[in-house]
């Protein structure tokens, strides 16, 4: 069956500066793939390229169709939910409005209210704060909100950029548990970009290691996690 996402020879540049030098990777439906690498390796750029936020070349096949060159909003409307670095919360709007915004392009209006309730079941703390301005939430709560907002799209694919960033370890653990559950129960397909390699490898099926804009290693997550060099450089032991 066709892969959900297939990227071939992806290049990207900021102005004159080439940041990605021809990436090849793919993601199966229902799978979790992680892109690992140090700061500046090009992980965020990769996600942004998929969403049409940066000048790119090559091929990005989503459900078999090339989406390179599509605008960000068109890619979103195809069912790709991108949770950016910094979470991208609508800080001036309430929690509830943020969730509504997640679903704003959906045609099946009648199910939206039900989905919002489902989100509140997943994330009770958000329910407590539903009428609060999103900007007043803590980092962990905003991260929950951003995941919930992405889910409101009923996405075919979720792109998560550094979900552990700035969060206390316990919260990070909680969040990755939620992501694991989502993948298992809702069959949510995810492409996760992470600096915290241990966590990401714990949840992913496939892993790709990025170094200065090129993929230097790829394979099943367990295999990558067991590799000597990876362990020493990225896992700390």
């Amino acid at each position: 069956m066709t892969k959900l996402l297939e990227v071939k020879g992806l290049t990207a540049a900021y102005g004159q500066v080439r940041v990605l030098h021809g990436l090849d990777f793919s993601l199966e439906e229902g799978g979790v793939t992680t892109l690992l690498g140090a700061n500046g390796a090009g992980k965020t750029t990769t996600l942004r390229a998929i969403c049409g936020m940066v000048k790119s070349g090559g091929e990005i096949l989503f459900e078999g169709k090339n989406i390179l060159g599509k605008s960000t909003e068109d890619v979103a409307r195809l069912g790709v939910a991108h949770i950016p670095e910094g979470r991208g919360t609508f800080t001036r709007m309430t929690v509830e409005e943020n969730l509504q915004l997640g679903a704003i392009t959906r045609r099946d209006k009648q199910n939206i209210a039900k989905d919002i309730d489902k989100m509140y079941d997943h994330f009770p703390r958000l329910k407590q704060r539903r009428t609060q301005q999103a900007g007043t939430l803590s980092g962990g709560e905003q991260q929950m909100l951003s995941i919930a907002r992405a889910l409101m799209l009923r996405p075919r694919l979720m792109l998560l950029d550094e979900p552990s960033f700035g969060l206390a370890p316990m919260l990070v653990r909680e969040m990755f548990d939620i992501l694991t559950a989502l993948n298992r129960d809702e069959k949510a397909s995810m492409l996760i970009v992470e600096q915290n390699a241990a966590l990401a490898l714990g949840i992913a099926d496939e892993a790709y290691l990025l170094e200065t804009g090129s993929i230097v290693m790829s394979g099943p997550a367990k295999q990558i996690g067991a590799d000597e060099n990876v362990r020493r450089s990225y896992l700390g032991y």
Partner: protein
Amino acid sequence: MELLTQQVLAGISTGAIYACMALAVVMIYQAIDHLNFAQGEMAMFSTFIAWQLIEKGVPYWLAFLITLVVSFIGGVAIERIVFKPIEHAPVLSHVVIFIALYSVINSMAGFIWDFTVKSFPSPFGSSPLFGSTLISSHQGGMVAVTLGLLLLLYLFFSYTSVGLAMRAAAANPASARLVGIRVSWMTALGWGMASAIGAIAGMLIAPVVFLEPNMMISILLYGFAGAVLGGLTSPGGAVLGGFAVGIIENLAGTYIPVIGAELKLPIALVVIVVVLVFKPAGLFGRVVVSRV
């Protein structure tokens, strides 16, 4: 005390004008996150179009409706043609474009319709309201329409999807795109709506101040002042701010001896600035706590 009451009432009735304008200002600010300096000129131009239609014999309410539609289209057109090409330019360049737009529209109006003062009819008549000589039925109508418009806008922004999308697009265009909102359409829509509201404001104001190309200059400024005083994010605050500005202006003119008619404007602005120094978000603006 008699004088004070009189001046306050007079302030409220001129304040209705500013409130209307302030509403249009906040409207476009919500839609595009910019203050539109050419708003007054666009309103003035729309009012001239209405005037022209009425001169040609078109009945008032039909002319009103046609003007609204034309203004809406005009607003969208200006956004698409003038602003879209430079959407990534720095903020100050945008400000300069607004200035240029002001110049173009003002000049064209003067060229087409010249600078002689014209009268503009009111659908409410001009008899004294409730027997008081200070507020005429037209001014009462102005207040009513402004409040009615305010209610409609509140409902639109708070309870419709389009309204929510527009707010999101203005507040955080990048995130809005990520949820699939077509930000540039929202911006165009916002311009159209603001243009139409400005037209309503112009058509309400013209019967009082008389129609000529420079009629909106000080009104726009008072409208800005009212909007800022009320808090740029609060349409209700803007309306209240507009009324407040009217009252302040009148009281300043009456009670501060050195002030002639010309200094009323700067004094009103000074009062507002002083308020802002103590309440930076305006009287009704929401203070956002941001984490650094």
